[in-house]
């Protein structure tokens, strides 16, 4: 039996969607216990909510160091959680900051890391991860070799979160000893640029994105209206972020974020290979572009050849009408 430790991300006590998806995946593909590791203020609150998605136990560390200092306090906590649980497989949300914690922990405990899994299967005591490579042109299967802790990063929306019907997880407070080095990088400010009420782009089920075809920054108001009608997040091509129409953290592609939402709706984006590298694995792709020859149409499930400024307003109106 292979016990799986899931590093759960949460917003002040509410587990992130991606973490519920990963807990469900661990429960579904695993043959042993699913144990949640939850760190930072609110961790105990989040621990009450992980049983629903299959965790039988939650290891909780609420110390303020988790959020006062970058990365390294959580490395110490994750190491403690691995030791306390005896788990040989650790699943985590493939997100940049979490990846840092896992990367350092893997070196510290002598583990191996496979990042960005879109599917998982357990073969004996090995967690085999499927990941998209070369911008989604190929799939590969990878695993951690030998007698090492297996760290596997799972991409958001690769699995659906489903209630396991299980009861509450047993909550255990984790005993973490911080080395002096854990507090050498102090977080002095946290700036949340937007409070749009929209979902986070990297875990959104729907992303509406805009490119150079918007013509100016105001175009993102229109894209935003469509995103809000669909309950989605707003993304962008590099042409749009380079122009300063929207912040770089919305950029999708080779040098931006890689996303795989259920629906990706591209507006005024031509579909350059560097952009496709960040969105090609989306489950459904819809496109509005006035150039029928734009390469993005070749990966679209539906393409509208038309002016986005003409198509989006009646589209938003109709969606809102149907929502009632």
């Amino acid at each position, binding site marked *: 039996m292979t016990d799986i430790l899931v590093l759960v991300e949460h917003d002040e006590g509410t587990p992130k969607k991606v973490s519920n998806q990963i807990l469900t995946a661990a429960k579904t593909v695993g043959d042993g216990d699913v144990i949640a590791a939850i760190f930072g203020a609110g961790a105990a609150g989040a621990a009450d909510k992980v049983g629903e998605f299959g965790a039988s136990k939650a290891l909780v560390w609420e110390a303020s160091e988790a959020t006062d200092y970058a990365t390294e306090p959580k490395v110490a906590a994750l190491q403690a959680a691995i030791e306390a649980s005896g788990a040989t497989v650790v699943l985590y949300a493939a997100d940049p900051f979490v990846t840092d914690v896992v990367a350092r922990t893997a070196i510290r405990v002598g583990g191996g890391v496979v990042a960005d899994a879109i599917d998982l299967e357990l073969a004996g005591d090995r967690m085999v991860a499927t990941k998209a490579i070369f911008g989604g042109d190929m799939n590969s299967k990878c695993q951690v070799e030998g007698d090492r802790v297996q760290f596997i990063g799972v991409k958001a929306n690769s699995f659906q979160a489903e209630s396991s019907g299980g009861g509450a997880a047993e909550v255990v407070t984790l005993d973490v000893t911080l080395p002096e080095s854990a507090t050498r990088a102090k977080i002095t400010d946290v700036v949340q*640029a937007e409070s749009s009420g929209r979902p986070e*782009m990297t875990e959104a089920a729907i992303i509406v994105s805009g490119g150079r075809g918007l013509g100016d920054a105001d175009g993102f108001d229109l894209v935003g209206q469509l995103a809000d009608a669909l309950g989605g997040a707003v993304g962008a091509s590099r042409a749009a972020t380079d122009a300063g129409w929207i912040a770089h953290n919305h950029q999708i592609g080779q040098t931006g974020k890689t996303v795989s939402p259920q629906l990706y709706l591209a507006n005024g984006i031509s579909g350059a290979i560097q952009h496709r590298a960040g969105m090609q694995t989306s489950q*459904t792709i819809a496109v509005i572009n006035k150039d029928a020859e734009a390469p993005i149409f070749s990966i679209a499930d539906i393409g509208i050849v038309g002016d986005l400024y003409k*198509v989006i307003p009646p589209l938003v109106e109709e969606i809102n009408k149907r929502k009632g």
Partner: protein
Amino acid sequence: MRIICPVKRVPDTAAEKKVTDDLTVDRDSVEAILNANDEWSIEEAMRIKESRSDVEVIALCMGPESAQQTVRKALSYGLDGAIQITDPAVAGSDATATARVLAAALKDEDFDLIIMGNQSSDARSMLVPAMLAEYLDVPALTYAKRLAVGEDGSVEADRETSGGHETVQTTLPAVVSVVEAINEPRYPSFKGIMAAKKKPLETKDLAAIGLSADDAGHAGSATKVLEATPKPPKQAGDKVEDDGSGQVGAKALVDFLVAKKFI
């Protein structure tokens, strides 16, 4: 102050890629370039160098012999020198093995700051910066979109988050990884390109940095690729021509979204 810029030779993303029999990227079949993200770290290092008098910037690259081209490209931006780790045994290194080799290469080197790209365009793992920092036992300020290094050895970075940033402070020595938003990289000047040919480039094998063949490549990697299969090309769906009013296009999209249960 001595700044190290780890740079990677990667296949051009714009080119078609193949995998070799041992399931790693076939680096011979496509044109190789300097990893785009490493241009921002070089630019950031050069800006620090130009802002004060005591700065030396050194490129560090683990790769095949042909990576010399990539290293020379890096030098053409005005760096002072380079270290290249080349050994038949490094082929196929995963992030763990790569970080181990880079750390070993720095064991006998002076360094205050390591600035690197946040990810390589081929592996895209984003693992190497934090792993390198762990091997060297220094803090890592990753995904920086702003970096300030004080004369007193203080380091402050704004780390890009999904909704903004977090500001982190530490002291040298440190690893910093940078995102695209941090700067607009310069083009190498003609003078820089000519000068790059004469800049000191030290090439070392694994033994020279105290490692054995088992520490790198497939043997030294913690992960293994079991298979790699091309995905069948996607079948494009319906293409609907709007009539110029927006109504036809909007209706087609609504029908599609309803059929797919997005509305």
